[in-house]
């Protein structure tokens, strides 16, 4: 009986591990889409999200950056390394944005219904 119990425990743990590994990142990505800034570049440069989603920009660069929508819908303070800025998109549409410190850096958010 003891070996059987051990096997059950083993398979149980294995199943839990597989579930965590497979579902974890996907579930995370759905709830918290993000744009990373590094090397003076937004990645992804274009992102599509659904209405009501909160998008977070994360500055991974060793220089401060700031986010500004071309249509002025949103604007962040300067973000130093590792700092973040979030904005919740309640209206569908295409939002072009740039770095207000380095305006050659540009990105786009597409918000769908």
């Amino acid at each position, binding site marked *: 009986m003891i070996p059987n119990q051990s096997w059950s425990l083993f398979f149980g743990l294995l199943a839990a591990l597989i579930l965590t590994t497979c579902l974890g990142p996907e579930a995370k990505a759905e709830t918290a889409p993000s744009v990373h800034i590094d*090397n*003076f*570049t937004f990645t992804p440069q274009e992102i599509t999200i659904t209405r009501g989603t909160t998008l977070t920009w994360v500055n991974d*660069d*060793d*220089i*401060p950056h*700031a986010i*500004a929508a*071309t249509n002025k819908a949103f604007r962040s*303070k*300067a973000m*130093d*390394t590792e700092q973040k800025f979030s904005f919740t998109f309640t209206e569908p549409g295409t939002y*072009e*944005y*740039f770095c*207000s*410190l*380095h*305006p*050659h850096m*540009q990105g786009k958010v597409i918000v769908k219904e």
Partner: protein
Amino acid sequence: MTIKDDNERQRKVLLDRREALTCMTWAGTGLLWAMNGGAPLTKGLIGDAYAAPAPKEFTFVQISDSHIGFNKPANPDAMGTLKEAIAKIKALPVQPAFMIHTGDISHLSKDEEFDNADQLIKEAGLPVFYVPGEHDVIDDGRGQSYRTRYGKNAHGSGWHSFDYNGVHYIGLVNVMDLKAGGLGNLGDEQLTWLEKDVSSLSSSTPLVVFAHIPLWTVYPEWGWGTNDAAKALSTLKRFGSLTVLNGHIHQIMQKVEGNAVFHTARSTAFPQPAPGTASSPGPMKVPAGELRNYLGIASVSFVANSKPLAIMDAALSANPAL
């Protein structure tokens, strides 16, 4: 023209190039760098500038991009290198009349960063004239902190002018209200002020214009230029001597166009890559022992009756001081 003439001319060109390369070697060691009306510096001018200074000669010094608050691997001690730059200024054999700082005094526009910069810069014991860089206007008040400290006698977001010994100096601000995909920006209000500022000056008055982002298009892919600089330069084109001093790109660049000499200074904090040589203009990491070859100050000499102003860049590593 005979073949012999051609050969003669070619030899002369080569010689001139060799002379120019000699100067470039000096530049590489950070000792001396100068220019004269579009041609590389000749020995004659070095002689003129050093051996026989005119009675009215004076110098001022430019520092730039001290980025106090920056602490990343490209230079974990931006305070230390600014301190070295100030020591270099104090060691100049002829003390400059004043100092200009072409922006990015701070890294994040924080009060303690400005305080720390001020503490070090005042050690030089010189009057200092500032223009802001984009790093100096990222506080909540979009430059309020900068303007309270450095803009008391300035207009708008911090532009101003002054006269010293027959030369008219104009500090311009091109880091505000930057547009998507664009370059530096002066704006109509400042351009109108500029027209008025120079309207009563004689065209023979030498002008020195300083601003943070280059007023000539160095590399638009990295935003290294100013959208409406052409309008400003058009206002200034009647002047016989125009020297334009900028920072922002953390390296020496020069261009001569007509009567205008454009020059960018090194940073006192960290170097940036040459245009197009890296995927981005981010801080360039160099071996620790070489950092001071890439940082430095610029000294500008005005010699009465000599049209171009001589600009000499000294690396922090250069020894002895200029």
